């Protein structure tokens, strides 16, 4: 895999599109947990049953039956190398659970990777839909389309009173987990995030940061998702989350405005220092890379940096993770080798980006 090839590949991917408010909301994701009526749940089923579930999926959701929804490719995890599995995890196409622990785990992927159906994870299947920017309703509509399609072929475990029956009590009802990934450097720099997170939690939503210390998640990326799946309709869940996210977007924008007004030169200094690191470092740890990528992303949003596309930064967030680096290097790397490789990959990609725009 060459970097050129990857960059080319990325252009057909959903995350290369810029959805609404994509400067702050990187992605919207919907996951629907579903189980098949005639099988025990993955919690306790045996290898044989897991295999039956997989065979059923292959038979009913295979290429011969995808006319209604468009082509899906099936990947059986046992047939993939561990690095390939890790790359799927890093692209958020499958969960770490599915990659490491599943019996006869598989995933069905659409061409631009906006749809992923995980098989034999915590539930029999999980239909995932990812779109760029804040578009939860659109993602829900798309996920529903695939859900309806599956339901035409296979009997779901469903109960009139409890809804979609799941192995985990936290998923029952709608089986719906809606989440958005937000880039919030303004709220972190102004420390407003410390008040906002508890407030969001009070609304029954869950906030998580990528490996970071406390509220200052590394890369300033936060994921916000619903906790309750029962007693609320899918529309209400999605609308409630959307309205909270819109308020956070508004606060992030005003925090950025305030920063530009009060500390313009400090902000510009920070952005260009980070760009300097990315352009010149020979060794860079993932944490430092994430921080610099966040700063440069902010610099692009604020118009300080004009010759690099924002999508390149989003791409680097994914490319600089351990699985990708090792895939790109063609084999396993020690942490130190990774840091060297990461630095050179970032330099190459930024060179490429600047050539594209010159």
């Amino acid at each position, binding site marked *: 895999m060459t970097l050129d090839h990857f960059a080319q590949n990325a252009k057909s991917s959903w995350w290369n599109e810029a959805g609404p408010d994509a400067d702050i909301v990187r992605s919207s994701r919907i996951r629907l947990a579903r*189980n098949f009526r005639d*099988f*025990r*749940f993955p*919690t*306790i089923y045996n290898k044989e049953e897991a295999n039956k579930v997989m065979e059923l999926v292959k038979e009913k959701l295979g290429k011969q039956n995808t006319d209604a929804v468009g082509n899906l490719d099936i990947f059986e995890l046992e047939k993939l190398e561990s690095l390939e599995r*890790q790359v799927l*995890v*890093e692209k*958020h196409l499958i*969960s*770490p*659970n599915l*990659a*490491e622990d599943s019996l006869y785990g598989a995933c069905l992927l659409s061409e631009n990777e906006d749809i992923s159906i995980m098989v034999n994870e*915590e539930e029999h299947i999980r239909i995932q839909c990812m779109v760029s920017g804040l578009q939860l309703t659109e993602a829900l509509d798309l996920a529903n389309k695939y859900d*309806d399609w599956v*339901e035409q072929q296979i*009997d*779901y*475990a*469903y*109960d009139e009173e*409890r*809804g*979609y*029956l*799941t*192995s*985990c*009590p*936290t*998923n*029952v*009802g*709608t089986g719906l987990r809606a989440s958005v990934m937000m880039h919030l450097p303004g709220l972190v720099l102004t420390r407003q995030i410390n008040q906002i*997170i508890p407030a969001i*939690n*009070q609304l*029954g939503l*869950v906030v*998580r*940061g*990528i*490996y*970071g*210390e*406390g*509220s200052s998640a590394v890369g300033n990326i936060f*994921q916000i998702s619903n*906790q*309750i799946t*029962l*007693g*609320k*309709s*899918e529309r209400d869940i999605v609308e409630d989350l959307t309205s909270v996210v819109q308020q956070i977007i508004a606060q992030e924008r005003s925090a950025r405005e305030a920063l530009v007004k009060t500390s313009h030169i400090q902000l510009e200094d920070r952005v260009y220092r980070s760009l300097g690191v990315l352009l010149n470092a020979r060794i860079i740890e993932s944490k430092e890379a994430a921080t610099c990528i966040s700063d440069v992303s902010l610099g692009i949003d604020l118009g300080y940096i004009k010759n690099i596309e924002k999508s390149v930064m989003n791409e680097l967030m994914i490319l600089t*993770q*351990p699985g990708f680096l090792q895939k790109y290097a063609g084999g396993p790397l020690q*942490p130190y080798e990774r840091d060297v490789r990461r630095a050179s990959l970032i330099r190459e990609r930024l060179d490429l980006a600047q050539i594209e725009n010159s």
Partner: protein
Amino acid sequence: MVCQECNQRPATLHFTKIINGEKKEIHICDKCANEKGDLFMQNGSNGFSINNLLAGLLNIEPFLQQAKASTLTHVDELKCKNCHLTFKEFVHVGKFGCATCYETFKDSLDPILKRVHGGNTAHVGKIPERLGESIHLRKQIKDLKSELRALIDQEEFEQAALMRDQIRSLEKEDIAAKERGNQP
């Protein structure tokens, strides 16, 4: 800082998970992160899954104990006839074994579901198209019946007769749908 999983290698990944305002710091090494699979911010495997964390923080276990205490029968001995999971095992694992478990443990579920889902116990969302055909029909029949009563009250007997016929044909459809549903 040393990895909190193996207590051997230096911790290279540092996470903070914040749930319901509670912070949980996680410091682990590359190797354990790989093994645990919690590389990014996905729901991790085993100890790190968001659901497990939720279960822990929501303190489901004492609740299940309470649920048990509040029912008169020996729920511990309840055993799902389909998957053979006992209530005791369900409490321990925090997960159901199959769809029938919901029926088996029905009497003890409400307090648990209320706790996890902000006081809710009943689904109000999507009804699957095919399996839900008869659910849709029954809802339609219910609505028509209340309209029928209103028409009778207003002495609109002609219209009421038409509606009665409509209800009857829907009821027939419902029976047919149920038969189809039993033979997928």
